[in-house]
């Protein structure tokens, strides 16, 4: 076996990271055009981006929706994961398949479906709760997969031992199950949050009239007239993504993401 890194790995690494580097570089343009390689050097576009009220409003909405989606998805996912990893019951495989179903459908179909449901059955305009629920349809399976992967790999003997020693069910849950599940819960929360925050395919359908989430605003901005402020905003999002990545790495949640558990 050769000791040299295969060229395919280097090439792929370049191809995957170059777009991000290009965005960061473009935010440093001093002129009005978002070009790569950048002309001039200036950090002014960062303050322009952060002063743009449309961006800020969208950022706030995205944050609120993502936080709400995360809370709902993790709670529902944790309950279901507990049932799937601590009980054996008839129809268990069916329940797992049902839970993962929304992940295999293109998000655009999910967006359209929830939109049609809200508009025709509930006879309502899209609203923030509708948007949150739409995100949860895909967010729950995302969180569920990670939580199940974490909880399934733990030894139930620890919980059984506590029960044998006389602890009540609540005490077992509080002192053993929950602490052990916490890294998985944090990892799942971060993943669902990022999914909801970055989501566009579902958000396009369910945004309340007059309001937009950040990815949608950025998409419209790029369509309309891209100047480096969009690159600056994008750079901030790249930084956000990298921070989340490092947090996930530190708490060891990444190893549960390589397709274990239900898949």
């Amino acid at each position, binding site marked *: 076996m050769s000791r040299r890194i295969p060229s395919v790995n280097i090439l792929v690494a370049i191809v*995957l990271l170059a*777009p991000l580097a290009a965005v960061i570089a473009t935010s440093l343009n001093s002129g009005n055009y978002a070009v790569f390689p950048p002309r001039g050097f200036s950090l002014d576009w960062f303050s322009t981006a952060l002063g743009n009220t449309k961006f800020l409003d969208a950022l706030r909405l995205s944050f609120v929706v993502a936080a709400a989606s995360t809370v709902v998805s993790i709670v529902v996912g944790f309950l279901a994961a507990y049932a799937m*990893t601590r009980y054996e019951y008839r129809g268990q495989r069916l329940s797992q398949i049902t839970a993962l*179903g929304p992940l295999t459908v293109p998000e655009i179909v999910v967006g359209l479906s929830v939109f*049609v449901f809200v508009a025709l059955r509930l006879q309502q305009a899209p609203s923030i709760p509708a948007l949150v629920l739409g995100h949860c349809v895909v967010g729950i399976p995302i969180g569920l997969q990670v939580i199940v992967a974490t909880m399934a790999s733990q030894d139930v003997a620890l919980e059984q031992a506590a029960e044998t020693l006389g602890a009540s069910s609540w005490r077992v849950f509080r002192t053993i199950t929950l602490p052990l599940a916490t890294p998985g819960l944090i990892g799942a929360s971060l993943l669902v949050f990022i999914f909801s925050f970055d989501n566009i395919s579902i958000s396009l359908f369910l945004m309340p009239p007059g309001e937009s989430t950040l990815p949608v605003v950025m998409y419209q901005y790029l369509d309309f007239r891209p100047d480096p402020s969009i690159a600056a905003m994008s750079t901030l999002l790249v930084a956000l993504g990298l921070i989340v990545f490092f947090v996930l790495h530190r708490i060891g949640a990444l190893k549960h993401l390589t397709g274990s558990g239900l898949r």
Partner: protein
Amino acid sequence: MTSVAPRAAGRVRQGPTRVGSTTSVSWALPAALLAPMVLFVLGLFVLPFVMVVTTAFTDAATDSWSLTNFQEFFSRSVGWTALRNTLIIGVGTTVVAAAVAVPYAYGMVRHPRWRAIFIAVLFAPLLINGVVRVFGYQLLARFVDRVWPWGDLPLLYSLTGVVISLVVFMLPQMTIAVFASLDRMDRRLVDAAQTLGAGNWQVFRTVVLPAARPGIVAGSIITFGASAGSYLAPAMVGGGRVPAMPTLIYGSVSGAGSWNFGAAVAVVLMAIVLPLMILSLVQSARRSAP
């Protein structure tokens, strides 16, 4: 998992049990735990999609059952173009992504010291906004096209460009899936094959590829669904010149045509993706079978 009493042959038809014991417990608690998830799936996923199907078969003008939406889709050239494009996008992205992912994953397997970096390279883009990633691709594509001395590269505003951009976006997910199964391969098989005189290509073909196959299949299912269903890539990279089914669907809701038409397109899209969905569910069911 410990089992106290020996299990009867075949399925044991008893009530739910806690993992690790054989005592039946009441249905109430597991059912209550699963209920919210089931409600979400049934109420916000299955039911709404059924409504989409009904809407697709409804004529917008007369509000009665009809096939006009599908007729409209299949009779207009933009419909056929979108269908063809979506299929090419789905298949093309999946094939190219798999072709790149397998060597990359194998490289990860062979160089464990670099594995953390290789995984980081894969995961980092996934945590970054799709709009940002497409924007980065556009910037790079314009730059590469400008400095490329030998004619034009079809990186933007073309079907090829859309596929290339989607390959870049889907590579992480495909590679992770391939690596997950390749990681379980017994390395000694490679050594054994080499000891028996197999050349590199033969080792790859007879040992590595079969080990990677489950991951390739799983990754392909994800990649096909995600790329065929991608809205951003045809819209942004294609710049309006690459009609695809997702762009038609969204367009129908934002003004260009009726929802019924969009619903019909969504039904056709699901018909394309559904066989793969079922395949993936059957696969994962089979894998966790006793």
